[in-house]
């Protein structure tokens, strides 16, 4: 605002309408197909679930021994589990751990990965060498087996701990991909022109290179976000992580190994509910990644 405030009124008016037109066109891209609207709605619903879900139910969900594996009904829209606990309640209260941990991991990954990748690609010698050593190291260690080994000494009880570990072990992929793109972009004409003009490296990276790698990063991050969700759910699925409260992964583990959901149709709802939630959030994230792709890369837009 400080820049536009000093402009004469008519120019200010133009700048404002330009920015309004831009956000309007972004909105049009977002709502272009019903699938995208649904994806946006799904992400919003799950975010709300993660934010307020745990406050809607008592801390210890009621169990009811006379009502186990109840089929879906008005009282229990998704039925009940092996202890007679409402599955919908389990889903709603279990969302926070899964989504919060994945979100924290994604933020850590985004910040470390993009910064390291851009820097290493633009200054391959001074900054790139040591950074890529570290990146190679992080990448060389396969995440899931590492998490399995770490689970023996690290408590994954809170989403913050889970998210931090997932993020710190998971940024290598983005860093490497961004570096590869930056290395290649660096040789392109427009970047050489910007450098030839004497723009500082910070500015060349920020305004010339970053917009070109952003679609790739957003695509990659969405895929990684879904990856984080599977990984944490997978740790609970294998039953090697101690947990203090139930979440989707614990539900899957119980469904497959305790309730024999694969051979026992009465516990099908118990298996399918967390599974469908994971699928829904994943597909929505990928759809939104495509929207981001179109917004960042005008050449992809359908006229």
């Amino acid at each position, binding site marked *: 605002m400080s820049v536009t405030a000093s402009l004469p009124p008519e120019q200010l008016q133009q700048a404002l309408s330009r920015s309004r037109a831009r956000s309007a066109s972004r909105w049009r891209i977002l709502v272009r197909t019903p699938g995208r609207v649904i994806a946006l709605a799904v992400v919003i619903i799950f975010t709300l679930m993660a934010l307020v879900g745990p406050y809607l139910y008592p801390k210890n969900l009621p169990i009811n021994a006379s009502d186990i594996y109840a089929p879906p009904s008005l009282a229990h829209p998704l039925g009940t589990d092996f202890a007679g606990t409402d599955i919908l309640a389990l889903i709603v209260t279990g969302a926070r751990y899964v989504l919060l941990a994945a979100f924290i991991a994604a933020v850590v990954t985004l910040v470390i990965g993009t910064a390291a990748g851009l820097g290493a690609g633009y200054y391959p010698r001074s900054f790139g060498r040591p950074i890529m050593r570290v990146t*190679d190291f992080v*990448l060389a260690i*396969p*995440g899931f087996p590492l998490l399995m*080994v770490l689970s023996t*000494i690290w408590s994954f009880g809170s989403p913050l701990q889970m998210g931090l570990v997932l993020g710190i072990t998971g940024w290598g992929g983005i860093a490497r991909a961004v570096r590869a*793109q930056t*290395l290649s972009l660096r040789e392109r004409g427009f970047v050489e022109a910007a450098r030839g003009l004497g723009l500082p490296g910070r500015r060349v990276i920020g305004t010339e290179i970053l917009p070109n790698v952003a679609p790739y990063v957003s695509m990659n991050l969405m895929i990684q976000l879904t990856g984080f969700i599977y990984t944490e759910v997978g740790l609970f699925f294998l039953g090697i992580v101690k947990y203090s409260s139930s979440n989707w992964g614990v539900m*899957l583990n119980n469904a497959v190994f305790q309730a024999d959901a694969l051979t026992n149709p009465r516990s099908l709802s118990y298996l399918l509910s967390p599974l469908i939630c994971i699928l829904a959030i994943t597909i929505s994230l990928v759809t939104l990644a495509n929207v981001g792709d179109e917004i960042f890369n005008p*050449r992809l837009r359908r006229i």
Partner: protein
Amino acid sequence: MKLTRWIAVKIVTGLIMIWVVASAMFLLLRWMPGNPAQTRYAELILHGDTPQQAQRATAALYGFIPKQPLIEQYGHYIWQLLHLNLGQSIQEEGVPVSHIVATAAPWTLIMCLSGIVASFLIGVTLGVASALRRMTKVGDGITWVGAIINGIPTYIVASLLLYVFATEWAIFPQGGTVSILYTPGWNAGYIGNLITHAVLPVTAYTLSLVGAWILTTKSSVISVLGDDFILAAELRGIRPLTVARYILRNAMLPLFTILSLALGLMFSGAVFIEDVFNYPGLGQQLLTSLNDNDYPVLSGAFLLIIVSVIIANFLADLAYPLIDPRVRRS
């Protein structure tokens, strides 16, 4: 000359990485709640062993003696490691860890390599198709299928495959590697049985990777499609097949990065798939040793996984400049 130096640097880096991980494993074994080596030592003393006997037994298990000063324990551990001595299993008493992991590794390797090759071929083909047809129903359809397959966690894919093709329809065996009815060797029955047992796990691997290939190939090809030189090539009337070659060559770079990542990722999928299909590979071994608190095997299997991934990355690094000449130039 420059190339040999570069390769030498890469090899040294790899060795340093292995050394760092091995040292981390050493510290982990010592810091682990209850310090397994210490606990074992105390147990043996309680059983009436002399301190010397107990020391020798713990050293055989873990590669270091818990009563020594830290630096000597570490030296002993590294020395044993250099002789490829990973200690002994606690669960299967007296069996060297190197023997256990060496029997497990080939299963994982065969599974993973077939899965990676199959998913790469299928995924890249579908990804290119969906990028070229991205304005049509076919392209959208492929993207959706890719997203959905990518959205189903490996453990669910594996469980469902097992349920449908082994329980419901019983086309394929429930799990394991080969039926005991056949004598091992190069005879049709044995090989055929090995393959029938491998079909479901390999399919699960392929499905777990193919979605990511489709999505990344599509994204990568689309970003190349927007480039001016492709437009110029099309305007010049160059044959579509040649243009497709230009596109693929340029789209390969990010894909190739992901391929080398997939080599590391494959061990994660391996854990779930081997667990579900009861396939005695490294992932299964890792899980068993974790559940049994068999720390020497745990650390041995983990080290082997790390070393394989480091070697795979090294090979990928070697091939990197061959694919993108722009990288070679800098």
